[in-house]
């Protein structure tokens, strides 16, 4: 092994240690964005009225309230970033506070009542997000 290769290997070794340390230090006890957060194998429907909307990057989100049935209550619904939604013709008006939405969602593995919107139906028009 040449001297140069040996030195590069030493730098690589140090880099691996530093990355592992950075990874360990940066990993928190509570992750809000767990690695496999959304269980895409499962989907179900939520019909509810929008109580609040966060129209923002990197992910927009809204809270619909389901008025009856097994899924009665408020849900935290994650959507995509704004550009991706606009590319699918969804505007902040489509999902505005007060709108009645039919959502097809996938649940979070970790958190109760946290879901990702796969499809959104608003005012009779369907939108596919994922």
């Amino acid at each position: 092994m040449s001297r140069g290769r040996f030195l590069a290997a030493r730098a690589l070794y140090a880099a691996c240690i530093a990355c592992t340390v950075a990874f360990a230090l940066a990993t928190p006890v509570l992750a809000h964005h767990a690695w496999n957060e959304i269980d895409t194998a499962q989907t179900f429907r939520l019909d509810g009225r929008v109580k609040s909307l966060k129209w923002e990057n990197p992910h927009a989100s809204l809270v619909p309230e389901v008025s009856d049935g097994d899924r009665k209550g408020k849900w935290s619904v994650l959507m995509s970033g704004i550009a991706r939604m606009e590319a699918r013709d969804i505007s902040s008006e489509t999902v505005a506070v007060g709108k009645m939405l039919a959502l097809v969602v996938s649940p979070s593995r970790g958190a109760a009542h946290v879901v990702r919107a796969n499809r959104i139906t608003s005012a009779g028009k369907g939108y596919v997000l994922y």
Partner: protein
Amino acid sequence: MIDISPAARLGDAIANTALGVALRESSWVYPMVETIHIVGFALLVGSIFVVDLRLLGVRRDVALVPLLRFVLPVTLSCLLLVIPSGLLLFAAHANDLVGNRAFIVKIVLLFAAATNALMFHVGPYRTEVDAPHGTRPRSSTRFFATVSIALWLAILVAGRMIAYV
């Protein structure tokens, strides 16, 4: 809000400025700022690694001073891409970032990398540029180069982790 530390309050205030709100709610400015940040740090870290590898003793046949004259302006230009875009991304999410462990780790490592580069330039760098062509870099030089590579890779890791913690 449970956490009412001065940092949290400042983070909230920055995120709630017109600039912070506009960035979060924009459809194309935000991804563009992200892209500038990525292009900037790809070129920044790439250019730093070229110099670090040379300082480790790889490709000693390449003269150090012309190499630095070529690469250093590239590195410094990249700072003009990463720093403003980074500040904008910080402004958009200051409320989350002030308490984000990965972000704090990243900032600490950035200061460590800057200090490392500065210490090299006021220290072994001076004797290194005067060394005869093809000389093996001194062990102190190789130490600074090793630390630099390690820190910059760790900064990339911590930076990517921000979205996952």
